[in-house]
């Protein structure tokens, strides 16, 4: 049983007598048995947040609750937390096994129990073959896996993982993420996972919190973050290939609102409810977002609207295709299944659902919701 709750938390640093806010008014709940991924670009405050929860960084203002107990003043050791960092901080004179054993021996676990746990975790992370090697002989990716293994082999109530697989070879990453999810499933350990990689965050988190400029911008499930981004930053930070963003003029066509992408002949027709809202706001232009995954080559429902573009680039990617199209000066991309019949230079009609159009205010960059 472990939950973490941050209430109005601030972190200040002093740099040349100037106050720098690393974390601003953060409210975050990590529920019992949940994996929350904290995602953001470098310098957004995600690592400071994690370090405050671990107790290695003081909380400048606000309250930290672990299991509903105010924990601001507890020492790191009293918090029953296991940590893994991006930098490995391994004991270089010890073998992989000895690195993993240290904490368990300190806790006076039986040799049998220690062996069992090391076997389980080392197989999960694919390091069972290197257990008796010195850590100095390992590659960066392997060292990072050992660092993660040393955290996971413990049995804390909370794991705090800071970019734990950023140096691991790409093809091994998802296997490790599956392992982390399995530990969470089997033992119900609460996990806070910090990363700048949106694919990792989405793969591992039950919920994803996105930070930027020291503030939590949005927290929600993949579906919420992906399909209802609250601002342009979230829309463009999450999702690959990147969302298509187009500046559009609002024009009225026979009483119907049309969003016309600048310098192109792309016309988007928003949902009637959105149109009504746009009337009320009386804006001249908006920023329109449409994900490459939400544009289709075949019409799959009668309600779908269409746009046209000239094919500029076709990228065959094996499982999928990425296509860049142009209309006037406006380029946009589409991510779809494999269609070998498509040809460069040809005009293509494409289809979208009105409810997948994301509309943002041109100045505040916030989503315009109904």
């Amino acid at each position: 049983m472990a939950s973490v709750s941050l209430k109005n938390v601030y972190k200040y640093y002093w740099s040349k007598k100037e106050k720098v806010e690393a974390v601003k008014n953060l409210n975050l709940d990590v529920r019992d048995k949940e994996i929350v991924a904290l995602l953001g670009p470098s310098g957004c405050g995600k690592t400071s947040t994690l370090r405050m929860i671990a107790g290695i960084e003081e909380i400048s203002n606000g309250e930290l609750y672990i299991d509903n107990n105010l924990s601001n003043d507890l020492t790191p050791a009293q918090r029953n937390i296991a940590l893994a960092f991006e930098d490995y901080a391994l004991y270089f004179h010890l073998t992989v096994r000895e690195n993993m054993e240290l904490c368990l021996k300190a806790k006076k676990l039986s040799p049998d129990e220690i062996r069992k746990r090391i076997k389980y975790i080392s197989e999960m992370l694919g390091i069972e073959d290197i257990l008796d090697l010195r850590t100095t002989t390992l590659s960066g990716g392997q060292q990072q896996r050992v660092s993660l293994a040393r955290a996971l082999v413990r049995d804390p109530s909370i794991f705090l993982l800071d970019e734990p697989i950023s140096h691991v070879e790409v093809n091994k990453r998802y296997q490790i993420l599956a392992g982390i999810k399995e530990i969470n499933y089997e033992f119900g350990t609460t996990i806070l996972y910090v990363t700048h990689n949106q694919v990792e965050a989405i793969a591992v988190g039950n919920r994803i919190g996105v930070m930027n400029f020291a503030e939590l911008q949005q927290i929600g499930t993949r579906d919420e973050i992906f399909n209802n981004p609250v601002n342009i930053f979230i829309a463009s930070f999450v999702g690959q290939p990147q969302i298509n963003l187009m500046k559009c003029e609002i024009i009225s066509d026979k009483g119907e609102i049309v969003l016309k992408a600048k310098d192109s002949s792309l016309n988007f027709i928003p949902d009637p409810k959105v149109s009504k809202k746009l009337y009320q706001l009386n804006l001249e232009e908006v920023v329109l977002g449409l994900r490459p995954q939400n544009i289709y080559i075949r019409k799959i429902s009668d309600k779908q609207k269409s746009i046209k573009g000239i094919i500029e680039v076709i990228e065959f990617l094996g499982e999928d295709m990425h296509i860049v199209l142009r209309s006037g000066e406006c380029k946009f991309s589409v991510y779809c299944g494999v269609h070998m019949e498509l040809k460069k230079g040809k005009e293509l009609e494409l289809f979208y659902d009105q409810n997948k159009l994301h509309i943002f205010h041109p100045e505040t960059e916030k989503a315009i919701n109904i």
Partner: protein
Amino acid sequence: MPKISLKNVTKRFDKVVALNNLSIDIEDGEFFVILGPSGAGKTTFLKVIAGLENPESGEIYFNGNLVNNIVTPKRDVALTFEEYSLYPHFTVFNNIASPLKSPSSKVKYNSKQLKEKVDSVAKMLNINQLLDRLPSELSGGQKQRVAIGRALIKEPQVLLFDEPLAHLDAKIRNQLRTEFHFLKEKFRTTTIYTSHDYKEAISLGDRIMFLDKGEIQQIGTPEEIYNFPKNIIVARNVGWPDINLFDCSINSENNQLYCPEGDFAFDISGSILQLLKNYGESEYIIGARPHYISFSEKPSDVYNLKATCGITETLDNQLIVNLKIKDMNLTLSVDNPDLSLRKNQQLWLHFNDQSLMFFNKKTNENVKIRQ
């Protein structure tokens, strides 16, 4: 006449064979990608063509002329390195201009011509606003653009790119990969490009050579490499998530394949059975791409293979499902990332036998190579 020909080229570093008896023709204007894991010999291949390494044996021809004894500056090639290798004390402008200022430059330019040339290359690479900066003030993606600009400005006969996107973040990497398509069109120079990322390779390459431990495993178009990998090594390294591989044996009485690891059997069509029988082995290794296996939450005539759902992972556009048939692990991927499956839930699978690959158990060769 091919632009570049290698005939029986071998290169060793002490006892390690970096290139083992390679012969290949690269056509004029071709965008040729060398794909392979680290240590495959990709960089050595480029260096041999550039003249930075001498082959131990074998010949290299440019336009039909033997160039083994021609030094690098005279080969008229441009090579970019994986780690950018920019001059740290030069601005972006001077870095890009450096090949034209070098004593080995074909033509001498005055400062106005130089500026025009740099501007046009910088514009193409979207770095025209960075010309006064030093490399230390650039991001990784920008540094790589400068390095590419420095190669392009020479307008060489052959462009050699060594893993240009390997050190970049996923997002910038995807963006630059797409941009390469535009650059490719504009330049139409014979290009050899190395990568360990199969998506990069099949997206960009007119042809791809899969290299492993200094040996050519396959040369083919993107579609051939992906859909008809010549052997297990290629199949394993192309496609994500990794291809599922498991043993099977033919039971010709009931047109079924039996898989001992998961203790199950499934029907296959007559044409495939015939193909396997003609090939002559009784046991094969099946290769099943994760997104060619379909499943249902309810059993039916089609979905008749019982499996147990394990951990699932949502990636951008797909859901990766790890599952088990008895003790055998399988990975599936579906295009619906919001589908919710519970761990230990029963799922019913169907193998589309037309999309399965079959490998010879002894030689690891694909049985179904397209003729």
